């Protein structure tokens, strides 16, 4: 019962060690890319890279919240699509962008609500429930503008200026030299990290993922807690969708395709278990960084496409393997406990 300060306590926790190893991996990766092409570290690329990481962080947070409760959200990519298409369609019809974003938010959150009820209320396996809403979501993204991608969102005179301001707010603008998207992702991270670590709801999310029955018997409202996780996921996906609408200046029906897997990748690389109950959002952020740095750095290294896939695959494996090797020194084959 030492009183050695919170920091040490936090670091000693399971999960934080993996965050640490993976961060080392990330740094190594950056150095390697910097050596291959010094422009990797150019001011321009750093701010560029940060802006590319931002949506992956959001997607990662989305998936992490759900994974921590022991579930999974396959509808993330579709919600991104719905959010992009719906906001863009409304804007092309001349609606004020903020109003359009508000209506889109409501629809996006509906996905979270439905997912939560299907999984916790009706006890559907999360894979099926969210595979269903994923497919439905893609259909809705297609139907919104009558089976077409939208045109440019800033063509209506009346709202053109507002739309441009809106686009700057989410994507093109900078604050203190850093793109707004990065600030938004940062703010989302801080808020949700706080919720996860410091509030009752956060505790309930972990408890639910660790042992749903014990959580229920401890007075945790399973339906509410699960729904919160899916709502957070839908909210983050919504933000990514809006950002994509702003960045492209139009709505694409297949926006966000398979983003849910990027979310899983970022989360799991950062130490979130798909079995629930463990993981830190800061790990997810590091995982998201690795993912984006790989995409960016390999382009800088001029690697051919096929090689790129192979390198990404190897690094995904090695990033997590590293931690396991550090933990076990010699990982005994099939000897110690399965996680």
């Amino acid at each position, binding site marked *: 019962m030492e009183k050695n300060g919170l920091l040490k306590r936090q670091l000693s926790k399971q999960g934080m060690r993996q965050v640490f190893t993976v961060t080392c991996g990330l740094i190594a990766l950056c150095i390697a890319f910097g050596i291959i092409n010094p*422009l990797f570290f150019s001011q321009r690329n750093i701010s560029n890279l940060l802006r590319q990481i931002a949506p992956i962080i959001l997607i990662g947070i989305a998936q992490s919240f759900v994974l921590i409760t022991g579930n999974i959200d396959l509808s993330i990519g579709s919600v991104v699509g719905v959010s992009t298409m719906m906001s863009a369609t409304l804007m092309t019809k001349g609606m004020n962008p903020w109003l359009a974003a508000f209506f889109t938010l409501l629809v996006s959150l509906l996905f979270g609500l439905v997912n939560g009820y299907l999984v916790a209320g009706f006890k559907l396996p999360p894979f099926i429930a969210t595979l269903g809403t994923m497919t439905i979501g893609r259909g809705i993204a297609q139907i919104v503008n009558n089976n077409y991608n939208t045109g*440019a969102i800033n063509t209506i005179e009346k709202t053109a200026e507002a739309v441009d301001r809106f686009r700057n707010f989410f994507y093109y603008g900078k604050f203190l030299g850093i793109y707004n998207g990065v600030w938004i992702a940062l703010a989302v991270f801080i808020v949700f990290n706080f919720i996860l670590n410091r509030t009752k709801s956060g505790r309930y999310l972990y408890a639910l993922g660790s042992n749903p029955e014990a959580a229920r018997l401890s007075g945790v409202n399973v339906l509410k807690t699960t729904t919160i996780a899916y709502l957070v996921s839908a909210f983050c996906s919504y933000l990514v969708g809006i950002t994509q609408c702003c960045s492209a200046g139009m709505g*694409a029906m297949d926006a966000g*395709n398979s983003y849910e897997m990027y979310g899983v990748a970022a989360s799991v690389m950062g130490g979130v278990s798909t079995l629930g109950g463990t993981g830190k959002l800061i790990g997810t952020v590091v995982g998201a960084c690795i993912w984006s740095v790989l995409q960016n750095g390999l382009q800088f290294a*001029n690697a051919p496409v096929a090689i790129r896939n192979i390198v990404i695959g190897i690094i995904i494996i090695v990033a997590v393997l590293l931690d396991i090797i550090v933990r076990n020194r010699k990982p005994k084959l099939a000897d110690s406990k399965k996680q």
Partner: protein
Amino acid sequence: KEDSGTKTWNVSLITMDSMDQHWVSCFEGAKDAAKELGVTVTFDSPDTKDDNKQIEKINNAVAAGKDGILLAANAQDAPVAALKEAQAAGVKIMYVDSPANFDTLRLFATDNREGGKKIGERLLQELKAQSVTSGKIGIIGVNKATESCNTREYGFRDAFEGQGYTLLETQYCDGDATRAKEIADNYIAQGCVAVYGSNEGSTVGAGNAAKEALAAGIKVIACGSDASDTNKQLIKDGALLCIMGQNPYQMGYKGVYAMVDLLNGKDLGGYQYVDTGVNVIELSNVAQF
């Protein structure tokens, strides 16, 4: 960008995705031109068709100090802002295959609508020749968001305007030849007299399905797009009536030449659309391609 004559230019080719045969051929052309000119071309396409990923690739190319970008825009409006930023950073831009709503000096492309229409007209001619004057026609698309293929499909539909045939709801196969074949099988089971595929994979599927049906004594005509080896073979086998042959190699090849001219400070004049040509390839002329 001083001593322009001796500088080794770095050009980035960013197409819609990195796996489609069409884009790989385009890159081949670009690579050959680059070799001849002593410049470097890298293939920086996203792994899947995704506007946002394409925008990121453009941003990365700018950050990586590329001198020029040859772009096949996934959507006309999506990359505009990124292209503006790129131009502001001194990067030269030209289009291959599909332009964006942003002014550049050159576009090397096929007229997809015209090409689709030509295929439709050829099919119509053949149907009439076989005295099939009505019936259902199935269309296999890639996905709803691929504009070049959709444009071809519109051209194809144009040709059948008011001709008394029923063009069924388009089915999408994501470019997967196997899925395309299943879709074509389903069309044939529904009694379609013809099946059209709007890209390579969907045409392969349509051709294979037609081949099988023909062997079973069912009359159906298949046609489509993209002159890949497999499709040419299917023409020779009598499975495909005709395909719309484009010239992606030329797009890449000419694109790099024009880009290097521009980078070397040559005056290219104003905007120019360079039609890289469409050919209707069929049994009679397949040997030439």
